[in-house]
């Protein structure tokens, strides 16, 4: 089955100071996503997860450019698309939910205007049908009294409700893929669970694929089928959520999982010592080796290759080894993360 989204060896760099300073925000990231699947991208601040998403939708900030790789969406390499072509994809085929609901909405326009826009511009819905469509969308994100609410303005709504509006906006164009960039980070803890449930239900109802960017593994456990762990611009481990949670192969993944508090477990919480590296001055060899409890001498010397641990499980670590029964399948190697 052809994947909905296939990112192959994506490289996005930030160039500043007239070319003298290059930051490899995304350095060879590959993964695939099928219809209806949910992929979680996890990592600390600055690891490149947001840049990866911005690369996919073609909205990189000035100074950033895709310098290599492919982004195959529904069969076409959208990394090569012109801005005009990308505009037709954004909102209609790929939508995005941003992190802070308090600033994501335009304060001067009504909810109806803002939610209706994708339908208006991409699907040509007008007038009364547009109003009906907006009402439908508001209902699907569980906003009570949609007819009344749609006449209101963002400042009249709470953060949780605004984030649902952002969700409605994402759905308005009937996309095939929704990228959610830390959608619950700025919400009250009590509202977070509600929102996640909503997203999960929406996904089941519409069959949309979701990329969930977060630094919170608990959310990943709840929402995602697959998981990709990023560090310093690379994916260090990728596979199904179950595999990675049960037996992580990369020391960073192990540390992340280990730092999650588990009910009933009295072991001391394990925190990762050190700081994420400065992407402009990466250490030699494996970027994680200065903080790695299992580092070997070779880790400082050379960057590890990607090891295929199982059919859909990869890790970038000198210590990682394929699972026994998978040795034979190595001959049929496919791009990482699929």
């Amino acid at each position, binding site marked *: 089955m052809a994947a909905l989204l296939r990112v192959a060896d994506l490289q996005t760099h930030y160039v500043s100071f007239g070319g003298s300073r290059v*930051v490899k925000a995304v350095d060879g990231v590959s993964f695939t996503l099928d219809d209806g699947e949910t992929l979680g991208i996890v990592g600390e601040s600055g690891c490149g997860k947001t*840049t990866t998403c911005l690369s996919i939708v073609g909205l990189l900030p000035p100074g950033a450019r895709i310098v290599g790789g492919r982004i195959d969406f529904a069969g076409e390499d959208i990394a090569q698309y012109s801005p005009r072509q990308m505009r037709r994809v954004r909102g209609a085929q790929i939508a995005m939910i941003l992190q802070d609901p308090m600033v994501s909405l335009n304060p001067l326009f009504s909810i109806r205007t803002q939610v209706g826009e994708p339908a208006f511009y991409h699907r040509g819905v007008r007038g009364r049908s547009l109003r009906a469509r907006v009402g439908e969308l508001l209902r699907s994100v569980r906003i009570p009294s949609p007819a009344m609410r749609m006449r209101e303005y963002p400042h009249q709504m709470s953060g949780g409700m605004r984030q649902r509006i952002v969700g409605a906006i994402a759905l308005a164009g009937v996309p095939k893929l929704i990228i959610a960039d830390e959608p619950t980070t700025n919400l009250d803890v009590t509202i977070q669970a509600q929102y996640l449930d909503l997203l999960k239900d929406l996904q089941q109802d519409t069959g949309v694929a979701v990329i969930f960017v977060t630094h919170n593994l608990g959310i990943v456990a709840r929402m995602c089928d697959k998981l990709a762990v990023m560090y310093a611009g690379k994916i260090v481990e990728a596979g199904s959520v179950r595999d990675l949670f049960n037996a992580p192969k990369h020391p960073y993944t192990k540390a992340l999982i280990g730092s999650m508090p588990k009910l009933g477990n009295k072991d001391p919480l394990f925190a990762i010592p050190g700081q994420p590296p400065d992407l402009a001055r990466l250490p030699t060899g494996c970027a994680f080796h200065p903080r790695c409890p299992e580092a070997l001498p070779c880790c400082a010397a050379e960057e590890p290759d990607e090891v295929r641990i199982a059919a859909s499980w990869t890790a970038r670590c000198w210590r990682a080894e394929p699972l026994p029964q998978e040795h034979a399948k190595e001959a049929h190697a496919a791009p990482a993360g699929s």
Partner: protein
Amino acid sequence: MAFVTGQTSAVLLGTSPPSAEGDRRRWLKLARGLPVLPLAILIPFVLIALFANAIAPYDPTDPIPGAKIFEPPFWVMGSNPHALLGTDFQSRDILSRLIFGARVSLIVGVTGTLVAGSIGTTLGILAGYLGGWVDQVIMRLTDAWLALPALVFAIFLATMVGPSMWNIVIILGLVYWTRYARVIRGEVLTLREREFVKLAEIAGASSHRVILRHILPNVVNSAMVLASLTIGVVIIAEASLSFLGVGVPPPEPAWGSMLSDGRSMLMVGDWWLTIFPGLCIMLVVLATQLMGDWLRIRLDPQLRNL
């Protein structure tokens, strides 16, 4: 995007008080990227103003002996070789008057700004630090003052008290302090919450000591940026007052009054009486503006949106 280096993040976190060492480093960095254009204009003007007596070819208030009135500058036909830039309606040398006028404009500009700055900064600090009703009163006063047309008021005051250079300085100071009050108050409000101030307060320092030792040194930067941006306004205000006849009184040369003198002859095309003084005003104000912009960007990133 979180590509922040170590030292920048320490500054962003705002936990360390501005230290003397940090200041020294900043001043050194400042010296590296000096703004050439504004300094190239300002330094000569300042020197001219300081050494006016030595530089000016003639006494600005006496007519040049043997010269006619309204003689054109030296490159125009019919000019007097003794008066490089021409003469005015009393046969006085324009060049000398311009030179001494620089002195007037710069002195009034700088001292007027100093007065405005002192009043405004003091009120701003008091309002920001003491809060409560003091803040309310000062803020309402500032709002009210800002709502009034400054120059019209200055004209009114100048008419009432009579023109003289020092009266003008005080009047301009009284009229232009409001910008300082507003901005400095904002700064003080944030400063007040910083740890090193709270530490001093907990240690029992009196308000007045905290203000002098901790708050004041930190608002100096903003005050300086504001000052450099305001000098231009004050200089133009003084020129306006002089033009209308309520500024620096004759025979003391002031660029504004020179413009007024030259107005009647403008109709017959004697352009030099108008162009030169105006050009001087423009250059000086331009230079201070550029200087202010440069200072603003270098000294205090928070003021970038001023």
